[in-house]
C-alpha cells in the first residue's frame, strides 16, 4: 500500500478547506471548511504515526478531534445566536457587534 495517495489527499483536503473559508459566504460553510483543515491534519498525523510505528500520531489525532468538537459546538451556538439577532448568518452582512 503506497502512502502517496494519502499524502496527496491530505493536501487536497487542506486546499478545499482553505477555499471554502475564503470563498463561501455562509457562516456554517466556513465552519465546515475549518473541519476540512482539521481532517487533513488528522490524516497526516495518522499516516506518519503509522509509518514510524509511533502511537503518538493517533493520540494527537484523538486530541484534534476533541478540540474540533469544542470548536464546532461553540461556533454553531454563536451562529444560532447571531441568526436570532440579525436574521442572517452571512458574516459580511453583520457590521456591528453592539446593539444600536
Amino acid at each position, binding site marked *: *500500500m*503506497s*502512502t502517496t*495517495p*494519502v*499524502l*496527496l*489527499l*491530505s*493536501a*487536497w*483536503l*487542506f*486546499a*478545499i478547506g*482553505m*477555499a471554502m473559508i*475564503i*470563498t*463561501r*459566504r*455562509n457562516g*456554517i*460553510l466556513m465552519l*465546515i471548511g475549518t*473541519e476540512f483543515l482539521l*481532517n487533513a491534519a*488528522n*490524516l*497526516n498525523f*495518522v*499516516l506518519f*504515526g*503509522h*509509518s*514510524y*510505528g509511533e*502511537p*503518538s*500520531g*493517533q*493520540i494527537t*489525532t484523538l*486530541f484534534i478531534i*476533541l*478540540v*474540533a*468538537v*469544542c*470548536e*464546532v459546538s*461553540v461556533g*454553531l*451556538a454563536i*451562529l*444560532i*445566536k447571531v*441568526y*436570532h439577532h440579525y436574521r442572517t448568518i452571512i458574516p*459580511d452582512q453583520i457590521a456591528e457587534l453592539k446593539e444600536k
Partner: protein
Amino acid sequence: MSSGAFFYALCMGAAGSSLGALLSKNVFRAAIFFLITLLCVAGLFVGLSAEFVAAAQLLIYAGGIAVVILFAIMLTTRLGRKPLAAGAHHVVAGYVVALSAFLTLSAALLERKLSSKAASSTMAEIGPALLGAYAAPLEVAGILLLLSLIGATAIAGSGKPRQE
C-alpha cells in the same frame, strides 16, 4: 476487490465529495458531502490500522458534528421563504490561494519516502499511553470539552422564550 483498489476508491471518494462540498450551491447538500468525506477518511484510518481513531471519527465527527451542523442549518433556514444564501465571493482569489497551498503542500509532503509497512500501534499501546504519558493533556482536554459544551448551551439557550 483487493484492499489496494478499495484504498484508492476511498481516496477518490474523499477527494470528490470534498470538491462537491466546495462547489455545491445548496448548504444542506454541502453538509451531506462533508459527511461522505468524513466516512471516506474513517475508512482510510482503518486502512492505516488506526481502528480506534476510525471509530472515534465515526462516532464524534459523523455521528456528532455532522448531525449538529445539519441541525444548525435547519434552525437557521426560514422555511417557505427564500433559501439560505450559499453564494460565493472572492472566487478567483480563493481558488488561487487554495491551488498554491495544494501544490506547496504536496511538493513538501512527497519530498521523502515514508515506509508503508511499519508496525502500527494498536489499542493496547494507545490506552496505556493515554493514561500514562498523556494523562495530563487528556484531563485538560476533558475539562475543555466540559467547558465548551456548557458554554455552547449557555450561549444558544439563553434569552427569553418565544412569545406565541
